[in-house]
Each structure stands twice: as C-alpha cells, then as structure tokens.
C-alpha cells in the first residue's frame, strides 16, 4: 500500500512515539529470468508483504527456517536490496534539525541522506571469516565506516577505535593484526566493533552466533546484551536457533516463506503460540533435557518454494489443523491479543501448545 501508507509526521509522533523503526508492507521479489533475452518468467517472493515495528532499546528476534526470507528482510530494511514495495519508517537523529528524532521513510530518501542515515543503522554478519577483509588490519576494518562518513584517520579516531576494541573484549595491541590471526569468536567481536563505530541506534544482527561454538556463543550473546545497555541500542536479531532468540529477544517475529506468521512478546510467543507453524517449530527443537518427552509434531514435507507458493495460507500443506478456508484465502495479519499479532484463520479457536 505505498499510496495510502504515507503517515502524517505529527500524527505518527503522537501515536508511535517509541517506535524506532516501523516496517509496513515490505516486499522484495527477485525476478527469475530465462532465455536469451533474459525475459522475466516469474518472481521469488523472498519477502512478501511484512509489517512489524521495533521499539527503542528493544531486541526484536526474527526466526524461521532457511529460505524464509529473514536475512533478505534484514537487508531490505537497511536498503542493501532495492525493495519491490513497502515503507521503512525510521526515527532519525541525524536528519533532524532540532535534536529530536525525525521520522523518515528510508525507501524514498535521496542518496546523500540515505548514506547519512546508514550511520544510525548498522549490521553484524553471520560469517566471521568472510565478512572481514583478510588484507585489512583490525584498525582499518573498524575505522572503515568512520572514514566513509568523513572522519579522518587521526589520533582521535584511533582513540575511539581503541576504546571500542577494549569495550568488545579485544586489546589495543590487536590493532595492527589481520583477521586470520584471530579465533572465530574474536573475529565476531571485530565485526561488532565495526558495527558500533558510528554510534548507531539500530543494529541488524544476521545470525551473529550461528557459526560459533556454544561457549563462545554464550560470551558473544552476553557482550551484545551489555552493549545494548551501554549504548541504548535496538537490535533486530536474525537467527534460526529458537533458544538463542528466546534468550536475547524482547519480542519475536516468526517468518514462513516470506511472510510473518506471528509476532509477540518472547515469553508469550514461546508459552502460548497462536500460529500452528510456531507450535510445530517449537515442538521440533530437540530439548537439552533427556527427561523431556512430548508428542513431537513432525512437520511433513519441506518448506514451500517461494517462487511457487501454495494457495491461501502458505503453511496449509504442512499444517495439521488446515481446513478448506486455509487453501483458499490468505489469512490476514491481525492483532489478536495486545501486542500479539498472528496470521492464521483459525487462531481464535485453536488451543496450541507452547513450551
């Protein structure tokens, strides 16, 4: 709804004061091209009309199976991918003249303002090996965003970098070393320091701990939580590990084939899910407790193909509660309980089991 989606700034400020980021109807379709003339024969609907918000200082977890579009969503929000439709409203500090936050739509900003706003939104990537340039030193890597945004590499900048490195648990003598000299956990710390170098207010973490061993994972999660407090950061935390997401998130969004199935407060979502997919996902996770025995719901088949999704609700072929309406009509994404949004025709009547 790009046309009617324009919210008046005054009205928005009154209503959504604490929303740092609001995503409305965001879509990202990748064209499938075939033949000599590269004709577009279809679209992979990687992100298909999703809406959610992030409050200031909170962590929104984004979970789902591989290929559900969670990483694409993260990248489209920061405008690394050109979105097909939708709005990303962000309360910017930098683009306002009077020091208060100004609400802007990231997707129709001119390039110079978009660049400026990237100081406020940064990213931490999954792979701590490939996301760092092997030919740059730690100091170059962490300084790069600052230099791009017009800082000169002087002693002041270096002092900032040293403070950042110490804050993430590295030492100042690591400054001149190269990424290969570090362990996976340390490399992820370098990536985190780089993300914080411009003092952002929103950090999009794309599977930041998936490649790490459990003990290193715990250290990194603790570090992210500490930094959030110290710098008043908001996180969008993208991961497939449900227990990690529960641990770190205030609210959690569950995605399935490009759509958001459910969003709720983390505790609420895990204890009383409203969407059958959330229930099945929670039940499929192997519990680290040998006495835990339950009737596991084993989802049949595999995740639907986003270039050729099923009719109606995308989850209906794997859903044990599916009825005729689920095959015919796309369920509406609606707020069923305060702060608990779900897209399921039968959400009211089903009694689903959480953890």
């Amino acid at each position, binding site marked *: 709804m790009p046309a009617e989606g324009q919210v008046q700034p005054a009205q928005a400020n009154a209503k959504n004061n604490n929303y740092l980021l609001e995503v409305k109807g965001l879509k990202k379709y990748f064209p499938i091209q075939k033949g000599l003339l590269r004709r577009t024969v279809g679209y992979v609907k990687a992100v298909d009309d999703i809406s959610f918000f992030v409050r200031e200082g909170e962590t929104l977890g984004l979970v789902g*199976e*591989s290929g559900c579009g969670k990483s694409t969503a993260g990248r489209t929000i920061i405008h690394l991918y050109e979105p097909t439709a939708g709005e990303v409203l962000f309360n910017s500090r930098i683009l306002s003249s009077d020091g208060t936050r100004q609400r802007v739509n990231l997707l129709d900003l001119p390039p110079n303002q978009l660049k400026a706003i990237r100081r406020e939104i940064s990213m931490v990537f999954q792979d701590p090996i490939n996301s760092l340039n092997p030919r740059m030193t730690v100091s170059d890597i962490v300084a790069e965003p600052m230099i791009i945004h017009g800082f000169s590499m002087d002693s002041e900048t270096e002092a900032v970098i040293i403070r950042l490195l110490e804050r993430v648990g590295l030492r100042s003598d690591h400054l001149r070393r190269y990424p290969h000299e570090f*362990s996976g*956990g340390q490399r992820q710390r370098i990536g985190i320091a780089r993300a914080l170098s411009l003092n952002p207010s929103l950090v999009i973490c794309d599977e930041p701990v998936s490649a790490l*061993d*459990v*003990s290193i*994972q*715990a*250290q990194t*999660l*603790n570090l992210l*939580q500490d930094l959030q407090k110290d710098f008043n950061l908001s996180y969008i935390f993208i991961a*497939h590990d*449900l*227990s*990690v997401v*529960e*641990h770190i998130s205030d609210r959690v969004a569950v995605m399935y084939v490009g759509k958001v199935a459910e969003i709720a407060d*983390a*505790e609420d979502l*895990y*204890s009383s899910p409203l969407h059958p997919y959330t229930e*099945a*996902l*929670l039940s*499929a*996770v*192997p*519990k*680290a*407790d*040998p*006495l*835990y025995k339950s009737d*596991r719901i*084993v*989802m049949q088949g*595999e*995740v639907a193909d986003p270039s050729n999704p099923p009719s109606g609700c995308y989850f209906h072929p794997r859903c044990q509660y599916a009825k005729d309406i689920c095959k015919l009509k796309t369920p509406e994404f609606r707020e069923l309980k305060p702060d608990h949004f779900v897209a399921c025709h039968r959400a009211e009547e089903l009694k689903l089991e*959480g*953890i």
Partner: protein
Amino acid sequence: MSEPLIEVKDLRVEFDVRAGIVKAVDGLSMTVNRGKTLGVIGESGCGKSITARAILNMIPKPGKITHGEIIYHRRLKSDDGLTQMDDIIDLAKTDPDGKLIRQIRGGEIGMIFQEPMSSLTPVFTAGTHINEAVSLHHLIPIRKVGDQIAEKVMAHRKVTKEEARVIAIEMLHRVGIPKPDQRVDSYPHQLSGGQRQRVMIAIALSCEPSMLIADEPTTALDVSIEAQILDIMRDLQQSVNMAIMFITHNLGVISSMAEEIVVMYMGKAVEQGKVIEIFQNPKHPYTQALLRSIPKLGKKAAGERLATISGMVPDPFNLPTGCVFHPRCPLFMPGKCDKVVPKWTKVGDEHWANCLLYEEA
C-alpha cells in the same frame, strides 16, 4: 546385557606438522555397544571427528595413530543367514588401504557426515576433499543418486545390478523420500539439502551396517527437517539393531538420541555416563560449564546472562600442564590441578570423570 561392538583403548592420534606435534586425540578410551547409541560431544577441535575417522582408519595425513587399540567385535553372517562367525579385529593395526578395512568401511561401519556445503575444513586441500568424496561419503554431483546407492550395495553384497537398483529404491523409500522410483534417477543438485542428507543416510544404511558413525549429521539442516532425520535414524536403528556413534555439539540433539554420552575436551574424554546422569548431575567442571552456557528453551528469566567458560581453548602446541582444563576451570586447585594429570575415576553408577576433585574420595 550390553555387548561391546567397538572398544577404543588409550587411543592417541598425532599430527606432525611443521610447527610441532598436535595431539588431536590423547589417551581416549570408550566403548560403543551393539544396538546402542553413544553420543560424543565437545567443541570444535576437541578431537571428536578425528576419533570417528580413527575407527575407520582413515586419518588424513600427516596424522597418524601412534598408540592404542580399536577393537572391533566383528560378526559375519554366512550367505544363507543361518550361521554366524565372530571375529576380533584391531582396526588401528589394519592397513588403511587394505582389503579388510575397505570391506568394513561403509559395509559394516557406515557413516554420515555433515552436508558437504559446510564440511570443508580449511586444513585439508581441495584435492583431499575430492578424493574423499569419490572414495566414500559425499554424493558425487554428476551421478544419479540411485546409481550411487546401487554401486555401494554391489560393492558389499552379492547382488546383480537390477537387484541393487531395487534395493536403492527401497532404501530411498525407507528414508522418506517421496516418489522413490522417480527420485532414484535424480542428480544430487535436484534434491534439497534435507533430501541429500537422507540419500546419505540411505547410502550409509544400504548395507545394513552393524554400526553407523554420524558426524554432525543434522547441523546444516533446519529444525523441522532435523526432527524428520532423527526420527528416521531411530526407526532404522531399531529395525536393524545397529549401534550409532553420534557426534555433535548440539546438546539438545544428543539428549534425544543417545543413551550414553562421552564429553571430550582437547583430545581427552573428560566425562562419560548415562545421558540423564550427565545432564542432571554433571561432575566435571567442563561439562557443568558447557551445560550452563547453552540457552534453554522456555526458561527465560528477564535480563539473565549466560554462564560462560572463561578464557579460550589452549594452544595445541603448548598445552597446559596437569589437567588441560585447569586454566579455565572455576574450581581450580592451585598446586594440584596444574601439576597432576587426573585419572579416569568412577564418580557414580556407570559414570566416570577425569578430574582431581573426585580422585581422593
């Protein structure tokens, strides 16, 4: 009641590289029982995968088994299936390229490894990977999956090509691949990650091995597919009375799969016992720390921090003296842990730990 199938005794595997000698496995002993599942857990670099490779006598160069025995209690059925013959073989002493180990590998001891996409190890050259793929446990991309199963069956069982194809279709059906009679002619790239891993299981189980080594078989898969694969493995285990050595760092997976667990740290077993014992009453400080450091599903407490293990895994060329865990141990006893190497001590019913805390009691 429990009958040993593989007994690893004081196994040492060393890698002689330019910078020195890395003791990848250092005095490991453990037993896999017939028809049971043994879980092996530990963080990367603890030697769990090298142990699996040692059992198959396929340690990559420059590694070598320098000490210890791997006793395999072999049971061969005659062709009519009526009589059986028992034999005891030390796998560590077999010729790694010999006929005997090639019969056992894949035929009697099957294996599933991680999805090839994520199993490339930087210490191996690309050539090693390709050789391994051809020799065993990865799918060959340019050949139909059915042919790959059939070939495996023919290498280990006396069947004709047509019979092998029938077995291949039957195996694909058993691991839950839809339309197996069509899928048998698919190439690996036409399958999804979960389906490829099922084909790997089908290949591994096609010769009805007495043991399956599963090295992080579900790490690269989504939870819903993982749940399906684990169910298939459990079902097949019951139907053919197969032992499983299940290697993983996912404590959730291990608690739902294994009866017994070995916890490894720096090439050594630090604790072994029944799953319930280890999870509810861990004795070794490393096991305790490892269990505390994972977030538990459905047990969120606001603002809670995870327990961490302080410090880092030690430099393999410069191992700490005494107990290798002492520099990171919260219960470090100065003058003791850094001097004395702990011994394997019984700490409960079928529960052992490698820690000085329990040695005197």
